[in-house]
């Protein structure tokens, strides 16, 4: 486990550094970045967050009890809290506490 985990950390580090370094390598001179890159750059973060939400919820089984009820409720509370107070920490702490309560004591 440990050796593979270390390799994973190394790979993730290398790719992360690459994504941070690449613009400076490619456009460090005077070259202008292509328009398509800039347009995608504005749109991609929203799409990727949507993808990650689905990724986090991928293992829910909608065909067996509790039919994803804890996840649905906690996500709804998270969105509601965030629209209400716009406080990242409150939204995360509140919904996570609720989820823990639901999976430990209710379902």
């Amino acid at each position, binding site marked *: 486990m440990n050796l593979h985990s270390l390799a994973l950390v190394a790979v993730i580090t290398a790719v992360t550094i690459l994504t*941070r370094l690449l613009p400076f390598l490619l456009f460090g001179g005077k070259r202008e970045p292509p328009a398509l890159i800039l347009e995608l750059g504005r749109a991609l973060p*929203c799409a990727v*967050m949507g993808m990650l939400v689905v990724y986090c919820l991928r293992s829910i089984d909608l065909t067996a009890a509790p039919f994803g009820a804890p996840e649905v409720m*906690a996500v709804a509370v998270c969105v509601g809290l965030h629209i209400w107070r716009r406080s990242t920490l409150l939204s995360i702490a509140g919904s996570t506490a609720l989820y823990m309560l639901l999976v430990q004591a209710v379902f």
Partner: protein
Amino acid sequence: MNKKAIRAAFPLTVPVMAGYLVLGMGFGILLQSKGYSFWWAGLMSLTIYAGSMQYVAVDLLSAGASLLSAALMTLILNARHLFYGLSMLEKYRPIHGGRKAYLIHGLTDETYSLVCSAKPPEGVEAGVFYFWISLLDQCYWLTGSVVGGLLGQVLPFDTTGIDFAMTALFVVIFTEQWLTRKNHLSAIIGLGVSAVCLVLFGPDNFLIPAMAGIALLLTVLRSHLKEKEADA
């Protein structure tokens, strides 16, 4: 000069300190709950140093993901860094050597938003000022994650379900982006394509087709993304 730079940089980083300490602790606790002791959290906060990627990395590590799928996941999740870099080209152009290397390594979402708006005080070299902002931020994140890892070992309560912190983090970022933008097409594409791919390919294999589908749709529909976002 360092003293003066720190004195100017520190107050700006206080909001990030609060967030990084708490989110870092969440990361450390989560990692610990999967059986990785605090030094793993410290190592990852030193080397990877990318908040949401580290939360996903907890998943990748505990599931023993393949190196290739980890690399792809990192690439798509951190692709936004490419655009942070693009907008910092001018600001970081006069800075050189090790300091510049560290500034690039430390370009997280939060540090980016600080150095984007912060102006160095009179008599302090810009590079030194940005360096301290970046370094302080990483110290907060590192401290939070190590403390979280240590706390995780001694927490007296049942941590079942604490994984939801990661879901909540992404739901919050998604909601925040939704609220601050007028054009929701890319958000809908992200959710929609991923959901369809999840149904078609199943939970273990849907990510790569989803990434490809999102990139393709965004490229094809890019005129619709641009037009409306101009007034966002």
